[in-house]
Structures are given as structure tokens and as C-alpha cells.
């Protein structure tokens, strides 16, 4: 075969078998392999037989109806207020990493307690879920933030992706505050870090953004390497944005 395959003996991959079954254009290498490999022919034929049963099943029409109905509901959409209420009732407060700047200038980290940030994501089907560190998101998903602070603080939510530092929201919560509005994720793919910056005193937004941008540059524009973006306490949540 001209294409290297990961399976021992050079057998066809799952994807190659599926493309062949779907009638998509086969490469000469795939056709030649199927002609000489009884094992892969058997795999293909077994799947073909199962697929025929799937298509002849009496439940198929009902499944299609369910998809059509769900698509119509999706097109009507749901309001943020209702979705947010459900999500906040169910979502745990997400605490990823808290970086606390000590009075002597040193830093300590802790996993729980104190300030926290919950992120709720709504996808393009109108479904909402908590977004935790390590989760996946997609361009077009919308996210909202709830910041909880044990003491009054001025909060700025910053987002770092491969291209830039963005300001998502400035707010001044006394307690748990759901930030107004939602942010629709853009089409920049890759890792992203959202940082809620909690400042005990008012600071010009431009000043906070300048500190964060400098930290981003020091990290080589790698969001995952931005350890501490500003001189204030921070809450970090990381997620990976992938194509849908």
C-alpha cells in the first residue's frame, strides 16, 4: 500500500472502511487493499450488512422525526434568562486555579475557597452546561460568567487565545454576580485561558489590559503559559476551542 496505516499488517483504518461504505471516492491504495485482504473485506462486508439492517429498521422514521423536531426547537431558540436560571441552579461553582498575591509580593495557589468564577456555556443547540478547565468549546458558543468574591473587588475578565488578550467584562461585584451579557466565542481555535482579575481598588481598565498584554508577550503568546497576568488576585479557567 502507498499510504502508511497505523494498524499492524497495514490493514485499513476505521475511517478508510467508513469512507468506502459511504461510497466516497476510494484511493487506488484502498481499492487494491480490499482486493487482496480478506480480513478488511470481511470488516467492510460485516458493517455493510449491519448498515442495511439499520436502514430497514422500522424505528428509522421515528429517529428522523426526532431530529427534525429537535432542529425546529433549536431554530426557535431559548432565552438566556431561562437557560441561565437552569444552568446556575445546576452548575457547580468552578474553581480551577486561584493565584493569590501575598502582601510580600510572593504568590500562592490554592484550589478551593475564596474567590471563584463559574462559566456557563450555551452551544448552538441552545443547551447549557458548566465550562470547566479542560473542557472543549466551539466557535459560536456563547459563555457567561458568574464571579463570587468573599470581599468587595473590582473584577475584569480577560481572555487569552493564540492571537490576543481580550477584555470580556469589567464589573464591581460585592458578592456573587452574573455578568451582564454573553460573549460569543470567535473562530480562533486552540487553547484559551479566561482569567477573572479581582482588584481590591479601582484600576483603569487600560492599566489592567497593559499588564495582561505584557504577561501574554512574556509567555510567548501561549495562553497556557500565562501564569499571572496582573498584580491582582486571579481565577483561571482553561478550555480548548475546537472546530465543530
Amino acid at each position, binding site marked *: 500500500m502507498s*499510504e*502508511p*496505516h*497505523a*494498524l*499492524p*499488517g497495514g*490493514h*485499513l*483504518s*476505521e*475511517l*478508510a472502511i*467508513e*469512507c468506502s*461504505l*459511504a461510497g*466516497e471516492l476510494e484511493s487506488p491504495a484502498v481499492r487494491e487493499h480490499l482486493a487482496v485482504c480478506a*480480513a*478488511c473485506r470481511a*470488516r467492510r462486508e460485516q*458493517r455493510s450488512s*449491519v*448498515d442495511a439492517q*439499520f*436502514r430497514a429498521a422500522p424505528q*428509522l*422514521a421515528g*429517529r*428522523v422525526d*426526532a*431530529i*427534525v423536531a*429537535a*432542529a425546529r426547537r*433549536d431554530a426557535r431558540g431559548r432565552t438566556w434568562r431561562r437557560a441561565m436560571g437552569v444552568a446556575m441552579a445546576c452548575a457547580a461553582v468552578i474553581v480551577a486555579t486561584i493565584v493569590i498575591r501575598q502582601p510580600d509580593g510572593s504568590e500562592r495557589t490554592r484550589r478551593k475557597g475564596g474567590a471563584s468564577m463559574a462559566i456557563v456555556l450555551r452551544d*448552538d*443547540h441552545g443547551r447549557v452546561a458548566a465550562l470547566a478547565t*479542560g*473542557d*472543549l468549546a466551539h466557535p459560536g458558543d456563547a459563555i457567561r460568567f458568574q464571579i463570587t468574591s468573599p470581599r468587595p473587588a473590582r473584577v475584569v475578565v480577560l481572555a487569552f487565545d493564540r492571537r490576543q488578550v481580550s477584555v470580556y467584562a469589567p464589573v464591581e461585584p460585592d458578592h456573587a454576580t452574573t455578568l451582564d451579557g454573553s460573549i460569543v466565542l470567535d473562530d480562533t481555535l486552540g*487553547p484559551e485561558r479566561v482569567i477573572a482579575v479581582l482588584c481590591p481598588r479601582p484600576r483603569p481598565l487600560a492599566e489592567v489590559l497593559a499588564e495582561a498584554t505584557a504577561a501574554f508577550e512574556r509567555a510567548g503568546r501561549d495562553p497556557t503559559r500565562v501564569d499571572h497576568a496582573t498584580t491582582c488576585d486571579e481565577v483561571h479557567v482553561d478550555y*480548548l476551542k*475546537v*472546530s*465543530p
Partner: protein
Amino acid sequence: MDRLEIEKLYVTYGPMVVRRARKFLGNEQAAADAAQDVFLRVVRHAGLFRDAASPTTWLFQITTNHCLNVLRDHARRTELWARWGPSDADPTEHATETRVTITQIMERIEPELREIAVYHLIDGLSRTEIAAVLGVSPRTVGYRLEAFRELVRDHLVMEAK
């Protein structure tokens, strides 16, 4: 998309989507639910689907990502990786120790590497195929596979100490 078009898509690609979802999620109901979600995404992104050079490849990736998201539950993922072996056509068997190691590693790596590891270890995709699925170069796939192998080596070294 109208009902006729959705039905045609489901008839054509539904078996693959359900088969793949069943492989990840382990039961018919979960696979059926996942398939519905995947086809909803197709309806939502009908333009992307129609423009895809290989609809099967596009759906293959979407189904994979959706199922990996569903599998974020730690207990379920551990069970799944412990019982998974290589793809059906591979006649060799991995030792139990290897499966457990892979389970532990997969729980710790970033989602991007995890997806590539699934395509390579479980589905037997070549670098070229993985590159086509992810929309990156085969060289990038090679780098990420090497990063995954380093993680495996590091884990094995730690286990040996």
C-alpha cells in the same frame, strides 16, 4: 434543511455515526442520543457539511469530539479505556497493564492530544488520514504523536521508579 434532506443524510451516514458512538459510549441508548446530537449539529452547520470534501470524515470527527465530551466523566472513561483494545483488524492483544497505563495517560493529557491518540491507537488512522480529519498538516500530526509518545514514556519511567 427540510425533512427529506435530513432523512437522506441520516440514512446515508447514520449507521457510521451510531456505530462510532456505540464504540465510545458502550450502549445503544447513549449512541442513539449522541447520533441525534451529531445530526442536529449537521443541520445547524449545513453549509459546512455541504462544503466538506469528505462528509464522512467531517462526521467522523464531530462524532469523536462529541463522544469524548460525553466521556469526561472520570469513572466511565476509565472503564472504557480499560476494556478497549486496538482496532478490530489488529490480531495482537495488548496486555492488561498496557491498557491500564493508557487509561491513566489519557486521563491526564490535553483534549487535542487525546483526540489524536484515539484516531491513531484505536482507529488505526494514518498520519495523512488524521491530518485530513483535523485539517492540519501530516507533519503537525507527527509532532503531536511524538508528544503523546513522550508522555507515555515519561509515565512508564515514573511507574518503574
